């Protein structure tokens, strides 16, 4: 019998980590090859499907960090008590860890953009010797929006971390300002050996790339991930297409040299 990719399979919810009122990480049972930056379609029959990035990879689990924003995601938050969700995937190309080994690695993430790159941060935080140097700049709207608080504690021990919020109430102890504010001072030793991964909302990505290029970083050393409307994840429904590229198949991760030419 031919494989029917549209049928989701049940996956048990092993653990829930509550970051904010509207952002939870669901640790799901899954065995099989997965890469950071790949995604799953999470399905609630009657409501629909939503593409969600893998935000962590365990030996027999994957993490899905979901923001409650609409029809499907609201329902996920209400229904997970049933102890399993229907999922299908993984889809997309994902990040290839090999591209970043022995490099000065800089990861810049805005908001939930941290999810698709979290697997890479986890990897180099637990194997710090495998990159020449690792820096994470993560930006959030406000202190209440900060995700992965426990993970940050761990990362701060092993890699350079800048955790900043756009705005904060008086008396906030942490760093403030947009992620772009921190780019001019990044300790880049050799621009040709430095790689940047930039993921976040479209405007954030645009301005971050501009700042990074000002540091003399060649295009091919920059990696981005695109978010587009996706109905299938299988190269069929057409919604994710940019020029001749299907984001669900050929992306969502692109080298900037290629990604910059993609027009909606």
């Amino acid at each position, binding site marked *: 019998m*031919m494989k029917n990719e549209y*049928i989701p399979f049940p996956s048990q919810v092993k653990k829930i980590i509550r970051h904010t009122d509207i952002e939870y990480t669901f640790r799901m049972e899954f065995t099989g090859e997965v890469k950071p930056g790949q995604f799953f379609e999470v399905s609630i029959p*009657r409501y629909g499907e939503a593409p969600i990035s893998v935000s962590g990879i365990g030996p027999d689990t994957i993490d899905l960090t979901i923001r409650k*924003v609409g029809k499907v995601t609201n329902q996920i938050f209400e229904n997970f008590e049933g102890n399993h969700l229907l999922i299908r995937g993984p889809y997309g190309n994902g990040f290839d860890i090999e591209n970043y080994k022995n490099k000065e690695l800089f990861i810049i993430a805005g908001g939930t953009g941290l999810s698709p790159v979290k697997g890479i941060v986890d990897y180099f935080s637990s194997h710090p010797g495998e990159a020449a140097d690792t820096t994470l700049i993560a930006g959030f709207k406000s202190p209440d929006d900060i995700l992965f608080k426990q993970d940050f504690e761990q990362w701060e021990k092993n890699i350079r971390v800048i955790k900043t919020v756009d705005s904060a109430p008086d008396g906030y102890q942490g760093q403030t300002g947009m992620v772009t504010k921190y780019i001019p001072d990044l300790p880049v030793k050799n621009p040709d050996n430095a790689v940047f991964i930039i993921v976040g909302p479209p405007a954030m990505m645009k301005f971050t790339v501009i700042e990074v290029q000002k540091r003399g970083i060649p295009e091919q050393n920059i990696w981005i991930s695109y978010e587009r*409307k996706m109905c299938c994840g299988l*190269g069929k*429904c057409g919604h994710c297409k940019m*020029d001749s590229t299907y984001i669900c*198949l050929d992306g969502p991760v692109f080298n900037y040299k290629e990604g910059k030419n993609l027009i*909606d």
Partner: protein
Amino acid sequence: MGYQLPRKTADTLFCRLREHYEIFAPKLFAGDGCFSDTDVIRYDKVSSLDEIEFDRRSDYSFKEALFAVNETLFYFTENETTIPSCTDKKLLIFLKSCDLHALKRLDAIYLENGPEDFYYKRLREKACFVLMDCGETCDTGFCAGMGTNRSDNYDLYLKCGEETVWIDCPSEELLSDLKEAGLNEAGETACAVTPNYVTQNKETVTLPKKLSVESFDNPLWEAYGSRCIGCGRCNFVCPTCTCFTMQDIHYRDNENVGERRRVWASCQVDGYTDIAGGGSFRQKQSDRLRFKVMHKIYDFEKRFGYPMCVGCGRCDAVCPEYISYANLVNQLAEEDAK
């Protein structure tokens, strides 16, 4: 090599063939057209040759025989999903040359672009294609220039006259089914049967050769697109448009039981790119028109090696705003020279 047989014999043959085949063909629906007092020709199951519209090009393409406007992917209850069963008959699909070329484009998306599509494939494997030739050109098509005016990869070619039917059946499987249904090779008159094809259309279209990323800024998109009302008809009649949107529904009498469907989608219609939080891409109709046209004559070719458009001309015939894709493409081509 083919056969000539009396129309009556052919009628009986096709009647018997229905034991093993569902037959899809263009049919005339009087008074059902998009414009008032017009007819529409669209695909439907037919049970006799009489019902088939052989001459005029259908307003809608054959694609719905393989890919329904609205297709159930699975039914769900609280704890299980069931896949709808598929007909156990084979399919016999009557079409014109341009549409047979469109089949290759549908295959490209549904069978080659990423994993194979379960629903498309299970019908595609059962399908045989019957070429109906064109004695003269349709009004808006431009197949000759696109090289889609001729086809030789049909399973059966059939020409229907008042008293006589001519067939050529390269497909061994279909030939043996025809024999089983009563085609008597010894009894019919063997003769050379080759399809006619048109060599000239009323409309001539030249594809631009120099499209590139720069073409995205061409002012022609705005010139044509400003009239577009985003109705999506051009996509729905197109034999090569394959896009769909997922839709979940539940039944009124039991909230927990329902189905997931896919429904034809149009890149010209609002909502096609909407993402959560109010984001969307290509808000202007002119950008959507550019996206569609570039898909048809530029980016599909970059990916698969041949243009997506087959020149059937249906989009120009159906547009309520009289936007001419053919003129637009020609104007783009004229700019090559500059």
